[in-house]
């Protein structure tokens, strides 16, 4: 249970999140990838707070990260819904009105 173990988990979560964002063809799956990335960042902050600075600062940053993740998820899903009303699809490749 050293610092590195937590960083390993966070690295795995981050690269899996990037993989989901790059390969998934469904906007909700992309949102799940973004949530994985945000979770890995929060885990990093709390681990550094526990092992290096040994105070509450990292907890506060992670707390604000969770708040922003909640706001981001709400806006993301409302954008997905209006895209669905407009295009009848939530595949990001189908929203190509500006493609020319």
């Amino acid at each position: 249970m050293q610092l590195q173990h937590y960083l390993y988990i966070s690295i795995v979560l981050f690269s899996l999140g990037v993989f989901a964002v790059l390969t998934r063809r469904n906007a909700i799956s992309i949102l799940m990838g973004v949530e994985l990335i945000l979770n890995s960042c929060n885990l990093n902050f709390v681990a550094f707070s526990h092992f290096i600075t040994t105070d509450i600062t990292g907890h506060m940053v992670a707390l604000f990260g969770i708040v922003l993740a909640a706001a981001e998820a709400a806006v993301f899903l409302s954008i997905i819904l209006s895209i669905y009303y407009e295009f009848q699809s939530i595949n990001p490749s189908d929203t190509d009105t500006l493609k020319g």
Partner: protein
Amino acid sequence: MNWTQALFWFFFLITIGSAICVVTVRNLVHAAFWLMITLFCVAALYVFLKADFLAATQVVVYVGGILVLVLFGVMMTSGKLDMNLKMERGQLVLGGIVSAGIFAILLLVVNQTEWKISQTPFDSGEGTTRLIGEAIMGDFLLPFEAASIILLIALIGAVLITRKEIKE
């Protein structure tokens, strides 16, 4: 190996395994439920880091709020579409290369950095809730107010974006 360490490795493996399932499973609803397991395990890791308040917040906000939002999104957008997630092979290869590269670089960084690890890891003894409350009303008052305004903006914005146009 004592019980704490055994539990830590248990959650270590479950976190990684369920995160892999989130990005590889073909069914969108199954992916959402694997994401729930991942979020629960991250909350358990917060407990190992002596962040009890944050672990409770993680369960309440992520599992109780964001995941329910995601499931609502799945229900409202999957009317005509099937829930199978198709992936194209070229993108799979390219995305795999990019994320494996990021993984390798970060692994190198973590292993090569000499972390200045403190001799006494953080442990507030009585829990972190009191400390977090004092920090919010002290050093972090401005970010706290900014976060409340951002939540209000997100709330109004989400309603405005999804509202159907009213024809006059």
